[in-house]
């Protein structure tokens, strides 16, 4: 019965589409109970519309109260610069020192960019190619691309938007595989014993370093996987809509099992999340997020599934009873 709630909600809000309207009508005519349920919700909805009416407002009085508060505040604000100057001076010294240190450090020909546990990084390469480096990753590239290929090395995960140059292909080596492209965008993830490439636009060649003949060509929404142990290159369809969530912040869960949802969030937010009850893993969720803090996502999950969550220093546990076999 709860599954029709979203239709009733849209109906009451007057944002229901024609097909949804038909679905709702069918459900209503199925039995008397549905109709009673619907009528009750509609009554509550109509009733709440009459609460909290527009209020009369004395703007003149509000303005004089505003002026009073503002002028009180103003006298406090003047005290600020004293410490603010000191902070600014410290910042200037700190920034110049780190700039000097950085200049010193970047002197060698090869540039290493390393990201830590909580920070991603966006890098522009000498040829204009853009790289988004995920957390805990490392990218190595030369100050200038001089050879026949534009060669970079990757450990971890990164998204590449390669500037097209047919005379000088772009080659990424990660684990024991290499990715060669002319100009396209794609995501590369290399872990111990495993490398994964998912293509967003254009075409990508993925091959083994020791045996260049062993190669697969990947097109948009293809996923290439290299498994070090077996030395196999596999090509398949990418089924994960959220493979770029770490970069875009956009997450979409369409009728997805909570077990999978938790895995995705866990990876994207780099936080260990557990289900307190294994029955929960089959609960299904329909929702979407756009660069929201983890706390908001957990709040919405608790809301949708009537579960609670507890945040511990090193992990988060979701508790509640399962959803049965309704799906």
């Amino acid at each position, binding site marked *: 019965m*709860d599954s029709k709630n979203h239709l009733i909600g849209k109906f009451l809000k007057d*944002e229901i589409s024609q097909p949804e309207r038909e679905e709702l009508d069918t459900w209503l005519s199925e039995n008397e109970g549905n109709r009673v349920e619907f009528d*009750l919700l509609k*009554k509550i909805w109509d009733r709440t519309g009459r609460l*909290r009416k527009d209020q009369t407002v004395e703007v003149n009085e509000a303005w004089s109260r505003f002026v009073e508060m503002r002028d009180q505040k103003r006298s406090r*604000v003047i005290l600020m610069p004293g410490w603010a100057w000191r902070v600014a001076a410290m910042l200037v010294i700190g920034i110049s020192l780190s700039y000097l240190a950085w200049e010193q450090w970047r002197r060698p020909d090869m540039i290493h960019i390393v990201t830590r546990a909580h920070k991603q990084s966006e890098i522009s390469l000498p040829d204009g190619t853009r790289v988004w480096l995920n957390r805990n990753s490392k990218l190595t590239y030369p100050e200038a691309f001089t050879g026949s290929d534009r060669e970079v090395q990757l450990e971890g995960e990164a998204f590449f938007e390669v500037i097209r140059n047919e005379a000088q292909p772009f080659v990424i080596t990660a684990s024991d595989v290499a990715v060669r492209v002319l100009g396209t965008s794609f995501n590369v993830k290399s872990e111990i014993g495993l490398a994964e490439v998912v293509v967003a636009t254009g075409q990508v060649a993925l091959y083994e370093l020791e045996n260049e003949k062993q190669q697969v060509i990947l097109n948009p929404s293809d996923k290439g996987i290299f498994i070090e142990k077996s030395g196999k290159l596999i090509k398949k369809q990418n089924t994960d809509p959220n493979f770029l969530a770490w970069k875009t912040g956009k997450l979409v869960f369409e009728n997805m099992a909570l077990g999978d949802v938790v895995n995705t969030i866990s990876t994207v937010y780099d936080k260990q999340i557990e289900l307190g009850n294994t029955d929960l893993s089959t609960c299904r969720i329909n929702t979407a997020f756009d660069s929201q803090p983890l706390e908001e996502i957990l709040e919405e999950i608790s809301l949708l599934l009537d579960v609670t969550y507890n945040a511990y220093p090193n992990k988060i546990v979701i508790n509640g009873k399962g959803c049965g076999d309704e799906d």
Partner: protein
Amino acid sequence: MNIKTEPGFQQVYFQYYAALFNTAYKILNNRQVAEDVVQEVFLKLWEIRHKLRISSSLRSYLTRAVLNTSLNHLKKNKRLVHLEDVSQNNSAQNSDDPELRVTYNEIDNKLNQIISTLPPKCQLVFTLSRFEGMSNQEIADHMGITKKTVENQLNKALSKLREHLRPYTKLLTDLAILILSTLFSYIAWV
């Protein structure tokens, strides 16, 4: 309008105060708290008026600020129910029928009470939708969340209301009948 000068700022204040106050009032259900929220937003605007860069309109900037400040208030005062407003603000004043008035009162009080116990964000979405007449997309834009989240929050609010109003189901139905019969007797009398 130049908000950097005092007269320009005052003009902005007079233009938007009433609308913003009502938005805050409908979310918070308390006149004093609503005024505090709006004043806080304008004080902030005054402080930053010289470096203010607004990409959209001043109106939507202010609305967004009022929503965020109200939400913070809801979060801080999760358990606080503004009882003083529960009884004084309902549609019963319009009714001459004492029985009708009591029933109105009872249900309105109950509704306000349930709404104030919803989780802060859920409460904000519901009040904006119901009392400010905002569309789901508008709410999503103002709050920086997805439309899907707005729908989910609204449905949650609705099912929470239903859940808590179960004991009042009969009352709601009675009320509908009562209104009808009052109406009929009025028509008959005319």
